[in-house]
């Protein structure tokens, strides 16, 4: 009931806001206000499109004006050369921008932070110089003027009201796309990549294709608005369109409004742009340039007061997520996740994961030295050894995060075929779930969203992912923390979240890297029970663990690694009574205790 209620109230608020947006400038009656309203729509739209890459995916592009410029020039050139309607030119521009986005993001997707930004600036600069030097098609530095064909099909109007209606339409279209992305799997995936790349790969997210898709969508929307704005201005030139200043302005609106939020960028444009324009109008009569100073002051205050953006700041005040999760939990039927949701498997003792002669060198150091191991279906295999022996390196090899210098890793697929492991994403899709020794939560997201991200491996539906996440939360004892940001969990809580997120991917093989470190003895007892249940559901488990109590209680077999090589392999009893293991790993205290 309450969910329905809050949704209808929210949509009502949106409708009211839309009506005000539509009517206000028209009622104001002055062309000047209408012009500012068009500007707000255009820049709000551009910032919204930018936010898909800059906010959701966290890749700060400072060359987005390139797509804006491509949209402008394509529409104008098609009109001048072939007398085609800008509506058609707009579509062509979007296609070209989409292709350009692939060209830019394919080689640069590995770059992070300032490096990605620098490349986008460089790309923008190259295109601007090309435009200046191309006299024939693009009119060189003097630009192109649009013939005054009035009418809807030419996107040029005598009355500004029509331009405003069209600008609003494009803004709403862009917002709609941004909203859809945020509510769907793609939005979750983009946020996950932004927060932690390795963890994202471990749950089966393809970083390259997800990022490129975001870039293409963002570029196409930017281009669309560029085409419209060119028609509105009726004149374009390289310096004003392929402009770094515009690129930065777009990013700034998103930053001030709230990076990564759906409505933040528009709110940013809505607040900052009119202030800037009105300052220019009112203050320039007193002293030339003073509007710039006041504008700057407003920006500094905005950034200081709302470090997470205006919408980001408000979101924490109107936190109804907790209530929503409570009602979700209340209405959630308790399904036996381990029995019903995990892929049913017969524990027939066949080898499901096999490493043969693995060697991994880091420079002169041999981290993994001819290691072979077999994990059988339905068993719990322990991996112990001194710190620095190469256990985590072996895990990274088995899950595709590192490539071995020699040796092979074979994985039995669900159909019983042997597949060579090549990448983390492939591994996750074949049913290998892994946790990280240093927990890697998606810190900015809630616990619920973190677990949902794992569930997205096998579903694209947000509701279904939510249900799986609730099931998993119940099994792993995280029900009471679902609404918390993952960053606020204790170390033990983060370890538990690692397991929960991995379980949600419905693995057939579970690789656990020290999930019990930092847990209290009672928590360890619970964790032991959980891992046993997971195994009983047919999942094969390979675990690195220093808590000998857990290793002894759980493992069918134990492999001891020392200095990169297998020291011995055997049952728990054989291992703890082995002199070499005691000397290298357990210590004399353990010998006496045992």
């Amino acid at each position, binding site marked *: 009931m309450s969910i329905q209620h809050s949704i209808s109230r929210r949509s009502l608020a949106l409708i009211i806001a839309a009506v005000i947006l539509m009517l206000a400038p028209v009622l104001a009656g002055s062309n000047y206000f209408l012009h500012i309203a068009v500007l707000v729509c255009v820049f709000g739209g551009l910032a919204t499109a930018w936010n898909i890459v800059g906010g959701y995916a966290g890749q700060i592009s400072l060359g987005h004006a390139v797509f804006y410029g491509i949209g402008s020039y394509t529409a104008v050139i098609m009109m001048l050369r072939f007398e085609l309607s800008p509506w058609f030119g707009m579509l062509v521009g979007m296609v070209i921008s989409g292709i350009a986005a692939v060209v830019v993001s394919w080689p640069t997707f590995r770059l992070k932070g300032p490096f990605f930004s620098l490349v986008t600036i460089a790309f923008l600069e190259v295109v601007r110089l090309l435009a200046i030097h191309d006299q024939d098609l693009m009119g060189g530095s003097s630009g192109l003027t649009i013939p005054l064909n009035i009418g809807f099909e030419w996107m040029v109007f005598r009355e500004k009201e029509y331009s405003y209606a069209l600008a609003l339409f494009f803004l709403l279209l862009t917002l709609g796309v941004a909203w859809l992305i945020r509510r769907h799997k793609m939005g979750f995936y983009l946020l996950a990549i932004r927060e932690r790349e390795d963890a994202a790969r471990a749950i089966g997210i393809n970083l390259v294709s997800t990022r490129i898709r975001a870039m293409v969508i963002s570029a196409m929307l930017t281009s669309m608005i560029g085409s419209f704005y060119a028609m509105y201005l009726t004149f374009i030139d390289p310096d004003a369109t392929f402009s770094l200043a515009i690129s930065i302005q777009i990013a700034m609106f998103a930053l001030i409004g709230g990076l990564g939020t759906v409505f933040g960028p528009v709110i940013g444009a809505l607040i900052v742009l009119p202030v800037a324009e009105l300052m220019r109008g009112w203050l320039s009569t007193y002293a030339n340039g003073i509007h710039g100073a006041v504008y700057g002051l407003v920006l500094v205050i905005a950034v200081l007061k709302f470090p997470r953006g205006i919408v980001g700041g408000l979101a924490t005040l109107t936190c109804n997520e907790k209530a929503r999760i409570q009602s979700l939990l209340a209405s959630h039927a308790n399904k036996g996740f381990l029995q019903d949701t995990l892929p049913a498997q017969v524990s027939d003792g066949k080898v499901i994961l096999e490493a043969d002669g693995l060697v991994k060198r880091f420079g002169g150091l041999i981290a993994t030295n001819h290691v072979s191991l077999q994990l059988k279906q339905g068993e719990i295999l322990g991996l*112990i*050894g*001194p*710190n*620095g*022996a190469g256990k985590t390196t072996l895990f990274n090899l088995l899950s595709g995060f590192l490539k071995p210098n020699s040796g092979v890793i074979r994985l039995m697929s669900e159909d019983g075929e042997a597949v060579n492991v090549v990448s983390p994403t492939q591994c996750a899709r074949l049913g290998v779930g892994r946790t990280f*020794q*240093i927990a890697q939560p998606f810190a900015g997201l809630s616990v619920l969203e973190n677990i949902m991200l794992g569930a997205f491996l096998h579903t694209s539906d947000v509701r279904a992912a939510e249900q799986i996440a609730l099931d998993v939360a119940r099994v792993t004892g995280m029900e009471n923390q679902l609404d918390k940001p993952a960053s*606020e969990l*204790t*170390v*033990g*809580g983060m370890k538990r979240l690692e397991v929960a997120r991995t379980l949600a991917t419905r693995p057939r093989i579970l690789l656990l890297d*020290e999930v019990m*470190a*930092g*847990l*209290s*003895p*009672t*928590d*360890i*007892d619970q964790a032991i029970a959980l891992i046993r249940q997971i195994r009983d559901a047919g999942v094969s488990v390979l675990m690195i663990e*220093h808590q*000998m*109590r857990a290793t002894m209680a759980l493992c069918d077999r134990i492999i001891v690694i020392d200095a990169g090589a297998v020291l011995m392999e055997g049952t728990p009893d054989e291992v703890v009574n082995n002199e070499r293991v005691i000397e*290298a*790993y*357990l*210590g*004399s*205290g*353990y010998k006496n205790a045992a």
Partner: protein
Amino acid sequence: MLLNVQNLKVSYGAVEVIRGIDFSVNKGEIVTILGGNGAGKTTVLKALCGLIPSTGGDITYSDSKITNQEAHRIVERGISMIPEGRQLFPYLTVRDNLMLGAYRRGARAQLCTRFDSVLDIFPKLADRLNQLAGSLSGGEQQMVAIGRGLMAQPELLIFDEPSLGLSPLLVEQMFGVIKRIAREGLTIIVVEQNVLATLEIADRGYVLENGAIALKGTCEDLKSNPLVKQAYLGH
């Protein structure tokens, strides 16, 4: 009394996580704070070190108040923390990590002797001085973290989960190191999940539950307390 905490309160937003606790540490003692996950142990330590603000109560350190002072001033007063999960500077060398520990005024003068004494406690680090801290194994990283804390020449050293992620052999050695440091005259607070081993080396302990002190006493008393036995010793 070296450290005296009275009615300390800490809140995250509207939630009060530390609800008015009292405890004290005498000079030369090893005191442990026990408690389950989320009991608030790390929060207490962070409030002591000025890493998060307290919302009420007083912290007195050698007869003057340090409540809500900035973290670097508290380090200047002689309190160092070895944080949970090591928190080294991964892209600096081991040597630089250690040197940064001696940033405290007064510690700089005796830099060389401190450095030698850290290498005396952890001889393994001598071979690793020019390696990046991030490339070390978990046990070696923990050694650097402790070494960095010692470089500040503190009077009070706070350990947050020193045995986290260490092999049984190294856990044993780590507790040996803590005992050795204590013998040299330092006062120590330890937070650990390895309750049994901690109670072996500590003098007194406090049990924290839901942000309040549920139990306190000497380690002998705590070890034989049925509540502690059941909740923290696991049998």
